[in-house]
Every structure is written in C-alpha cells, then in structure tokens.
C-alpha cells in the first residue's frame, strides 16, 4: 500500500490493533479520577443553578426575566442559536468530512457527535422554556386535537421545530449506528458479568460479520449524505427565524450562509475546547494529535473569515441599499449603547482567528485552547448583537429601551452549560470517546508503524 512520505501519521506511537483497543477503552475502566469527580461536581452545581432558574420561570412566568415590550427576545434566543450552532461541528466532522474522505475525522468524530447531541438538547430547552409553560411544549407539534386546529406551516418558528427535532433524531441514530461495533468491543473486553450484559444488550448482538460490515458502511455513507444537507438546512432555518421578519438588521438574504458558517466556526471552537481537555485528561494525545488540532484550526480560519466577510457585507449593504432604517440599525450596532458587545464580537470572531495563519500558533495547543474560548465568547456575542441590538431601537423612539438579563436568565444559561458538561463527562465514562473500529481501519495507511504499512 502506498504511503505518502509527506503526510504525517494520524496516529502516533507504533500501535497495533489491540493496543488501540486498550488505549481507547482505558478511560472507561476502573474508578474515575478525582479530577472527573471535581468536574462533575462543578458541572452539577451549575446545572442545579439552572434547575432553580427553571423552577422560578415555571412558577412565576417569564416576567422573572429582563425582557420588556421592546425587547422580546434576549438571552434565551441568543443561547438557543449559540447552542444549535455548536452542535453543527459534530455533524460537519462526521458527515461532510466523511463524504470528503478526510481520514483525520476518525479520531474526533465520536466525541464531536456526542457534543452535537448534548448541545442540541441544551438548545431545544430555550424555545421550550420561553413558552413559559414547559408542560405545554407539545403544542408545537401538529397533532390531532379537539379544536381541529393545526400548526402554522408558513411560520419559520414551526420550521425550526421540524428542523431541530429531525436534526436531533438523525444525529442520534447516526451516532448510535457508529457506536454499535465499538459497544461490541466493550462487551467483549468487559470483565464483570453485569457490564457484559449491559453492553451486550446495547451492542444489539454485534458480531463483526462481513455482511454486517458491508451494510454498516453503506448505511454510514448514506446517513452522511443525508446528514450533510440536513446540517446546512438546520442553521438556514434558524436564520429564517430572523430573516423572514421585517426588522431592520434581521431582514437580510445573507443570513442563511452567514449563519451556517458561523455555526461551523463556533462548533469547531467548542470541539477544540472540549478535546484539548479530553485528550490531556484521558491520555489520548497519540490519537488526537497536534495535526488534528491544526486541521481544525484551518477550518476555523476559513469559517471565521467567511463570518468576517459577512459582517462587512452586511454593513456595506446597509449603506448601499439606501435604506435609512437599515443604516441606522447598523450604525447603532457599532456605535450605539451596545457597541461594546459589537466590538467584543468583532475582536473575538474576526481578529483572533486570523492568528491561526501562523503555523507556530495553530500548532500550539495552549494558544489554540485560549483562542477557542475567545471564539466561543465571540459567537455568543454575535447572536446577542443580532437579537438585542436590532430590537432595542425600533421605528418608534418613544419605545426605545435597554435590556439587562435577570439572574434567572443567567441561571438558565449557566444551567445548560452545567448540563452540557455533566452529560459529556458521563459520556466519556460510558462509551469509547474515539471510534475504535474507524481508527483501526485507517491505522495501516496512516499509522506511524512503517513496517506495518508495507505489504508483506
């Protein structure tokens, strides 16, 4: 088999197949480290704060939030769009990079997909809680009812319901189908009877038969083909929530591509944040190498630059369209009372990722980690700027207003962060964080063991 001398190996350390199994299953064995307990304690306390905020919202209504008549969407929708966007990287890595035959995805796709699922759960929470009555959430689905009423299929908010729920369901089965062979490995390596029984049940009776593998590959490929347009459609539809309205600053045709690239941008930042910690904590540096980090940083430069161009295009069109309301909104964004948010967004999203043009910086793990946090913050502010700064000064100056979130809204946001990290910490204990079978299938062509790759 031909091995390019220029390409650096994807998997470091002279691994054979059974070493791969051992390394990847290692974090699941034994009792968790004390850092894991500390992490989950912190995450659970954040989630508890969120539970309190949910309780207050449900029992006193969304009057407990800082919203007012002018600003009807605040942190809740900001958080919703932010979380959905973060989810996009997982599907991008597992579906779009699979279609492009990018082998480096095999080390990161499993955990990125898990991150997607958890992020979409956190996202879905916000529109539901914004209804004020969480228990009536099912009203958003078209179900036969005594009033013979259906939902409004012309509304982008309803499209969102379909987009997000389909996205979650398809991501879940895509993730699980990929997990089945690896659960089989966990089952066969299990030491106790209970573990064997549980993973045996979850593995659906996987044996690794050639016919099953052949079907498995077909299913993965077609699911990737379905998930790729799906992931693009999800943030497109989220952007329609804004773009189909007549609010200056929202009513622009640039929104769908701009939102999608922003989503991938923020998603990769979150993947980096999570994986830089995970690889260190679980000793997976030989699987998630600096090369992987560099590749992700390249995607961050690309999508970050698209986002930067989108900001400038929006501003240009605001002037070029000759629409005074549009122009006012944009000048107000950059120089009005929310200018600080706008400039945080510009700095974090447009300037910091450009540092990745330097190879020294994009191969430096610590700097990458810091920049990934900057991007997370910047993308949160992008949504805040879009939601709040467009609303707070509308056509009627007498209704101009300012918005400050209440402690309850902060609690809901911190709560979803807590939920996110809690579920991710549980995931790394319960399932293999790296797709074992997929790593093995690229080991020969992309591993470090040169003797192994020569045809004997």
């Amino acid at each position, binding site marked *: 088999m031909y091995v390019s001398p220029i390409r650096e190996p994807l998997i470091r350390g002279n691994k054979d197949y059974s070493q791969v*199994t051992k390394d990847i299953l290692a974090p699941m064995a034994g009792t968790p480290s004390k850092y894991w307990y500390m992490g989950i304690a912190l995450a659970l306390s954040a989630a508890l704060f969120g539970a309190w905020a949910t309780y207050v919202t449900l029992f006193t209504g969304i009057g407990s939030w800082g919203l007012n008549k002018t600003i009807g969407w605040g942190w809740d929708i900001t958080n919703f769009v932010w979380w959905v966007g973060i989810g996009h990287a997982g599907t991008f890595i597992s579906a779009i990079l699979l279609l492009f035959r990018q082998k480096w995805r095999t080390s990161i796709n499993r955990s990125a997909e898990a991150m997607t699922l958890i992020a979409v759960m956190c996202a879905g929470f916000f529109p539901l809680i914004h209804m004020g009555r969480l228990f009536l959430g099912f009203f958003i689905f*078209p179900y036969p009812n005594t009033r013979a009423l259906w939902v*409004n299929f012309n509304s982008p908010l309803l*499209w969102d319901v379909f987009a997000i729920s389909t996205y979650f369901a398809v991501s879940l089965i895509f993730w699980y189908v990929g997990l089945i062979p690896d659960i089989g490995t966990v089952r066969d390596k299990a030491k106790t009877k209970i573990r064997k029984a549980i993973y045996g049940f979850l593995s659906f009776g996987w044996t*690794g038969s050639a016919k099953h593998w052949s*079907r498995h590959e077909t299913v993965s490929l077609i699911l990737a083909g379905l998930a790729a347009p799906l992931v693009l459609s999800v943030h497109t539809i989220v952007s329609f929530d804004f773009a189909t309205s007549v609010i200056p600053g929202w009513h622009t045709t640039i929104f769908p591509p701009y939102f999608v690239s922003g989503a991938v941008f923020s998603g990769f930042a979150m993947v980096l944040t999570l994986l830089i910690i995970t690889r260190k904590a679980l000793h997976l540096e030989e699987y998630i190498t600096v090369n992987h980090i560099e590749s992700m940083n390249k995607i961050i430069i690309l999508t970050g630059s698209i986002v930067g161009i989108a900001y400038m295009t929006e501003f240009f069109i605001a002037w070029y369209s000759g629409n005074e309301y549009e122009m006012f909104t944009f000048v107000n964004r950059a120089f009005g009372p929310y200018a600080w948010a706008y400039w945080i967004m510009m700095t974090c999203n447009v300037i910091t990722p450009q540092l990745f043009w330097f190879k020294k910086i994009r191969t430096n793990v610590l700097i990458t980690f810091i920049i990934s946090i900057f991007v997370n913050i910047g993308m949160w502010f992008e949504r805040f700027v879009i939601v709040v700064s467009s609303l707070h000064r509308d056509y009627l100056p007498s209704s101009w207003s300012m918005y400050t979130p209440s402690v309850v809204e902060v609690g809901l946001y911190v709560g979803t962060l807590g939920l996110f990290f809690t579920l991710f910490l549980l995931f790394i204990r319960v399932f293999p964080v790296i797709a074992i*079978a997929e790593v093995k299938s690229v080991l020969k062509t992309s591993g470090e063991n040169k003797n192994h790759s020569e045809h*004997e």
Partner: protein
Amino acid sequence: MNKYITAYYLDEEKLLDGLKQVKAKGFKIADVLSPFPVHGIDKVLGLRRSRLTRVAFIGGAIGAITGFGFQAWVFTMAYPINFGGKPFFAAPSFIPVAFETTVLFAAFSMVFAFLIASKLLPGNDPVIHDERVTDDHFLVIIDVADGSSTDEISKIEKALQEAGAEGIKYKA
C-alpha cells in the same frame, strides 16, 4: 450452522490473500468476522451490493410526499386559514418541513432496515466465536456439511493451514 471450522488471521492483508487461496481450492467461506470493515472482502466472499440505498430512497420519497401532502391538506382542506392574504396553497413555504420529513423518513427507514436485515436488535444473544474478534483477530468460518468424513474435514483444515491461518478449530 451446526458444524464448522474456525481459523484466524492477525492481519487483514494476509487474511485477504488467505481467503483467495482457500476459495481457489473450492471451499466455500461461510463468514468472516473482523474488528473493522476489510476493503475488498465483499468481492472475495461474493457479497452482493447492499440494497439498503433503495430502502433509503423509497423512505425518503414517502417522507417527501407525506410532509408536503400533509401541509397542503391542512391548509387547503382541513382548516384553511388566511394568513395576511397569502394563498392557501403556499407551496414554497411547505418546502422546509417537507425537506425535514424526507431526511427523517429516509434515515430512519434505512437504519431500521439495516438492523432488521442484519438481525441486530437489542437483547440479541449472538454466538461469540472468539472474543478477540472485536479487538484484533480476523476470524474465518467455513461450514462443514452434515455427514462429512474426517478426511474431508482435515482437507479444509489443511487448506486453511496452507493459506496461513492460525488457531484452526473444528466445532460441532
């Protein structure tokens, strides 16, 4: 599968070479169990291309028709509502939901078809020939016909041995 012979390889390229040799001698390989998909094995074993893609297409088509048709039915027949003077049959605004149902139906129908066709269902209790199959062993299974003499069995074993297989076992 009552009586069969198992043997294993530790390398997928040796496995492929070995399978070709065994096959050339006229023995039928019942199955190969491997820790990851081995490319080129479909041809050696004579596996047909999976028809799951067709299931996905049909599922997707049903999803598209259901999604679009349902919205059209709701807005033109079941409960027509006038939204700002726009037409009841507003086809462009039905597209996003129809797209999502297409993807949903295609994905779920294909995955269920895969699980059912492969008999991969929760609670299954498969025969685990060798626990190292999901780790680093590539296991070859050759069926032994009922009433085969020991001579015929040892012929298969010999063929496997010559093809470089290890751990040859006869199981009845």
